[in-house]
């Protein structure tokens, strides 16, 4: 494998990691602050992608589609919070898991009903079309770089919000000791709505940005959801910084593993079994990494909860 290909794969990995971070950020805050396991978070990502695709098709351009889809994703998140999730905050984790699974089933099917089962294609916005020469002979799509930049910018913005504002301080306090926060007279109901809305919008944003490079289809949130859970557990539940580091790590492991593992196996095996064993090992790599990290640091890389 050449260094150029390695660089391209590393960039792809980082770009996937950034998308994962946008989904995981909301998940880790909702889990950390509200102690609420929301399996339906992956559906928010899917809804974002569908809303972005529809609005882009309706207005004829990606950008107004993005601008319309963001508040729509926020509205969907708040509606779900009001209809279902709000009634589950004081229930045990298992009840939350079952109820939010019910929401997944409903929304996956509703998406099929509204948009059909065929994957939707979203064209890359014309402003960000084409490639850019990173090195002599190495072209990389501008749009993927734009995703990377947008993701890092959002991460910075979120970091500022959480670390430097009053609302952010409340969120951090909630992640570290929730009963104390409520005892101090903070309206946790409103805080929960704020956190939930932001989380839903971030996941939706990831979905919209992923739409032009991935196919938009029902159930696309399910695989992202499980990786997002891996990310928040590695990073430490409730920690935005941990989610960022872990998301990039998982993105890199997942992408580099897929391209490197089959080559690596070819050193030991014949080409055909090497391809198969390599693919299987590459898929396992993320889980092996999670098991190793948890064995060394049981509460994740950046634990947020006190005590």
């Amino acid at each position, binding site marked *: 494998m050449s260094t150029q290909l390695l660089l391209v794969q590393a960039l792809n990995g980082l770009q996937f990691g950034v998308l994962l971070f946008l989904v995981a950020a909301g998940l880790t805050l909702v*889990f950390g602050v509200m102690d609420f*396991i929301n399996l339906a978070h992956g559906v928010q990502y899917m809804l974002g992608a569908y809303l972005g695709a529809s609005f882009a098709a309706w207005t004829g351009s990606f950008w107004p589609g993005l601008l319309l889809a963001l508040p729509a994703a926020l509205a969907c998140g708040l509606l779900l919070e009001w209809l*279902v999730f709000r*009634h*589950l905050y004081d*229930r045990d*984790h*298992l*009840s939350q*898991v*079952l*109820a939010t*699974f*019910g*929401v*997944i*089933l*409903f*929304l*996956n*099917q*509703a998406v*099929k*009903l509204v948009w059909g089962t065929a994957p939707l294609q979203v064209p890359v916005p014309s402003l960000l079309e084409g490639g850019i020469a990173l090195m002599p002979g190495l072209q990389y799509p501008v749009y993927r770089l734009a995703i990377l930049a947008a993701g890092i910018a959002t991460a910075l913005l979120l970091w500022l919000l959480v670390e430097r504002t009053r609302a952010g301080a409340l969120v951090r306090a909630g992640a570290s000791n929730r009963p104390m926060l409520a005892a101090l007279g903070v309206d946790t109901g409103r805080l929960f709505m704020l956190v939930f809305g932001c989380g839903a919008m971030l996941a939706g944003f990831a979905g919209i940005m992923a739409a032009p490079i991935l196919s938009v289809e029902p159930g696309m949130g*399910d695989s992202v959801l*499980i990786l997002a*859970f*891996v990310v928040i*557990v590695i990073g430490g*539940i409730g920690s935005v910084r941990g989610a960022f580091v872990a998301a990039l790590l998982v993105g890199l492991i997942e992408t580099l593993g897929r391209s490197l593992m089959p080559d690596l196996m070819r050193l030991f095996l014949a080409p055909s*079994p090497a391809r*198969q*064993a390599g*693919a*299987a*090992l590459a*898929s*396992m790599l993320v*889980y*092996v990494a*999670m*098991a190793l990290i*948890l*064995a060394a640091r*049981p509460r994740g890389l950046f634990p947020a909860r006190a005590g």
Partner: protein
Amino acid sequence: MGRLRGALLPLAVFALLAAAPFLGLGAGYMLNLLARGMILGIAALSLWLLVGGGGLVSLGHAAMLGVGAYAVVVLDAAGVTEALVVLPAAVLVAALFALLTGAVAIGTSGVHFIMITLAFGQMAFFTAGALSAYGGDDGYTLYGRTTVLGARWPEDRLAFHYLCLGLLAATLGLVQVLLASRFGRVLRAAKENPQRAQALGFNPYPYRLAAYAIAGGIAGLAGLLLANATEFVAPSYLAWQRSGDLLFMVILGGLGAPHGAVLGALAIVLLEEWLAEWTEHWRLIFGPLLVLAVLFLRGGLAGLPAQLRALRRG
């Protein structure tokens, strides 16, 4: 009296299952469906032992079932279908897999236990997909179903129905005996209050690990039955979604009593089928039903009679 009343619901369900072939439900398709419900009921019962008995929420339980099913596949490819060999192999291999993965997983708790069991489940899933000798991702169609002492009676639908029913009842009995035993009491004590159990001199680890291995073995039995029911085994048996399904059966059934797992499994399998027959968009109804069940059935399906009685008393 209270005990008797508590046993009424499971007894009624088992009586209905036993009578099903004579209630006009003898059509092959209906019996297949019930067999599937009972087999998943056995798997859900083994998961209930972990979740309801030990507070160990596993999201990798389908892997145990899958390991049992793949034991059948490996022996089938070698030309062995005799139950005297296949049954111990499926149960022991699944229990061994549970013992090895459990030794690592039991050390963690809460959401980390969920994620570690998920990780092992995913590793087993991808390994199954890489077994090119046994069909890889496409799965493996069995040459022959399991025979008992060379006889092929389990191939008969009616016989298989009662075989599954008998094993389901035996599993429920086993789980109840285990729970009532000293072993089960320590397990439950460690779930309710780990500090106190430890202060009394009980280290929960070996008890939890033993429960995990036993549950793995029972799930291996379910895997053997499922492989026989469908005559086909694929890596999708081990997918995390299947583990999720088992967990949802347990939660919907309720954690108050083991027979909840049986109710949950039958309810989900039958409801899915009936709704799917009615409309292709059955998930639009099934999803909200799960939400409503969580919001209004506080004790799950197993707690329904008690909830109704409380409602009538006002």
